[in-house]
């Protein structure tokens, strides 16, 4: 197992380099003037600043030279400065990453804690009324666009019922309070979790259904084990693999953020930061974020594969 992990890590390195090359090429070859983000048209033409920026950013150098400049700084942790506004990319991205992760992890946790048990119940009571109700609700949860859920939730729970504050992470002007923060976190996390609850419930349900009819489950029952042991220890553990896949796929979303929900709730996360970077042609920011997403996907995949091995002893990597 350790050898497998080390091998995977070693393979990740050239893949990561390949990602950096692609990220760099796409942004470098994108149409548009890279200086335009630094000198906006309404500031007029400023040839001295333009020349100075071109030299500083190395934009007059050939592509490979520019790539090496960028990559050599990046491995030292210097992601450069934003084109729009000039703040350091690394700290801006870290801030946004922290905010996004809190939101997404909470939503994912709710999704697991609610979705998985519901999926199990639904599978055990297949074709019953409970199953039918839950499956329909799932369907609604997946189909409703997050924009609608978000604004609707704000309108109902924020404005009409006054249960939650409207947007933002904290109440401005007050010292930080965990209660205040959780109040702000609750609504966006709940809205986001709808999608996770729905998909986890579906996958759990179908995976459980496959397993529950397996012969080893009836054997376990025949041996006189309590129903709860049969379900949780024997059936569920084997149904876990697709569930872990879904959770593993959700991990890169921590980094990508949920653009629409973050916009509606003014949650300053990665999703809205990336959109800001792209529409403002803020190349250093876009490269920094794309790189981070690439790294996260690589390692999330590795983590997921390792989890498989723990959950299913039949899976051996060598």
């Amino acid at each position, binding site marked *: 197992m350790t050898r497998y992990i080390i091998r995977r890590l070693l393979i990740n390195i050239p893949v990561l380099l390949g990602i950096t090359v692609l990220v760099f090429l796409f942004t470098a070859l994108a149409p548009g*003037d890279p200086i335009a983000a630094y000198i906006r048209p309404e500031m007029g033409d400023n040839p001295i600043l333009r020349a100075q920026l071109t030299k500083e950013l190395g934009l007059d150098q050939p592509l490979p030279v520019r790539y090496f400049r960028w990559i050599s700084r990046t491995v030292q942790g210097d992601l450069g400065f934003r084109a729009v506004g000039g703040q350091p990319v690394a700290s801006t991205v870290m801030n946004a990453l922290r905010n996004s992760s809190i939101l997404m992890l909470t939503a994912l946790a709710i999704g697991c804690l609610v979705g998985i048990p519901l999926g199990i119940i639904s599978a055990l009571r297949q074709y019953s009324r409970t199953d039918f109700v839950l499956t329909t609700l799932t369907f609604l949860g997946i189909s409703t666009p997050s924009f609608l859920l978000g604004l609707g939730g704000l309108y109902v729970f924020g404005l009409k019922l006054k249960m939650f504050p409207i947007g933002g992470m904290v109440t401005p002007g007050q010292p930080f309070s965990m209660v205040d923060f959780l109040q702000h976190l609750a609504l966006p996390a709940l809205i986001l979790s709808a999608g996770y609850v729905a998909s986890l419930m579906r996958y759990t349900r179908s995976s459980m259904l496959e397993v529950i009819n397996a012969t080893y489950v009836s054997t376990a029952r025949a041996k006189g084990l309590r129903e709860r042991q049969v379900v949780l220890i024997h059936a569920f553990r084997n149904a876990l693999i697709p569930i872990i896949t879904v959770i593993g796929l959700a991990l890169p979303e921590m980094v990508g953020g949920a653009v629409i929900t973050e916009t509606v709730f003014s949650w300053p996360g990665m999703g809205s930061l990336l959109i800001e970077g792209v529409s403002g042609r803020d190349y250093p920011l876009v490269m920094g974020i794309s790189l981070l997403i690439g790294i996260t996907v690589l390692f999330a995949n590795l983590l997921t594969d390792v989890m498989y091995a723990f959950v299913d002893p039949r899976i051996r990597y060598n």
Partner: protein
Amino acid sequence: MTGAWIGPCCVGVDNNNPMIAGGDYHWLNKIYSHLVTYNVEYTEIIGDLAESWEVSSDNLTWTFKLRDGVQWHDGSLLTSEDVAFSIELCVNPLAGGCTKAGQLMDIVGAKEYVDGSASSISGLDYSDPSVIKITTLAPNAPLLDTLTETWILHKASLGQVPVDQINGNEYWGKVAIGTGPFKLQSYVPGQYMELVRFDNYFRGAPLLEKLIRRHFQDPATALLAFDRGEIDFAYVTADEVEREMANENAIVLPGPSQVDNAITMNPEKNPAFGNTLFRQAIMYAINREAIIENLYKGAAKPVNCLFGNERYIPADEIKYTYDPEKAKALLAEAGIDPASLGTITMDTYYNDQLSLDVMTAFQQDLAAIGIDIAIQQMDGPSWTKRYYDDLDSEMSFIGGANGADPHRAYQYYHSSVERSNVYKFNDPELDKLLEQGASEMDIAKRDQIYQQACKIMSEKLPWLFMWETVRYGIVSKRIGNFVFTPAAGGGSYYDAAEKWFIRN
């Protein structure tokens, strides 16, 4: 008092460096001041940090007397050295850019300072700490307007920051020393900024204790927060205004946006576009009244030249009322057969539904006189490249600031200007008037000159002027003495923020 200044309306809105901020000025005005500013009606320029000013008999040297005893937020006193520092920083290319840099180049010695041959701007005289003298290369009437948006910054603290690190520096979010009525308390990037009252503000200590600006990415969310009472001020879009008019706890504040919408045409793409009769035909063909009434719900005012300010509009400007028959007649007179033009693409950087509806209305109106238009909405940077760099646009639907000073027209239409006069419009009569207007110091005469300029613009149509939109703010009734007008970028006007208070 909590307000929402919604981003991303303007680039740099959550960046507190006023020099490069493209908007959000009415927030930045709470921290920093200018030498002069406009009154809220935008009819005259009044003193801010400058108590009085006069110009020499040769119209070249302006002497500004600074108010006595103006304090910075750290208690030190404002001197003319701070003013000179601020102007030098604005034009300094190493500082990362500044919106007024171009206009400030008209100061004697600015060019030498910028290209490095001088270590300071010779046209700035700050030998007397309570007086700043500015000498310009030529008589410069719009200098006062330029100074309404030139931020006066604190030399002692900002001067410590290396010039090439000023852009995006944490100074703007942590130190931010200004002379405005409120000073920085805390700043959480992406979320909010908190200001507290500055007791030694030169117009008197503010009544309000705190001002908070919350950053919203979605205007709909900001409005919900306003309805709930979480914030006291927000912008409202025209489609939400009707709903908010019924809100008992709110006052809707309309005002001219100081931005004109217009259609531009590229004569390189089609010689017909350079034909004045053809352009006039299109003006008559478009039913502006119907568009304003049905799509803008009345929230726009038709303009026939660049200016929206009544004082620059002559009684005999051409009013292009909707007249498709006249349009067809003009086409015939110009000898242009609309069918021969083929399909013309009208591009724009406006991506909202309202603009799409407006352009669809253009499409219909022009189809009625035989001209076929295809609409293309693009994102900002792509459009900028196509319009300014590649000169590839055929027709474009744009927005352009129309003020506050009429000298704005020079940048767009004077034949000597590159880039912002994209299609190299060249009318010698208009050129002369714009030059005269820039150097005429007498206000009454200046108004006359620009009225004549307006008349020519409405005849020759360097742009097809459509309308000036109305924008709205909304404020909670619990705020007393609140003053607001939706100027472009937030504008620079005296809003008496020190007198705002919360009713109980």
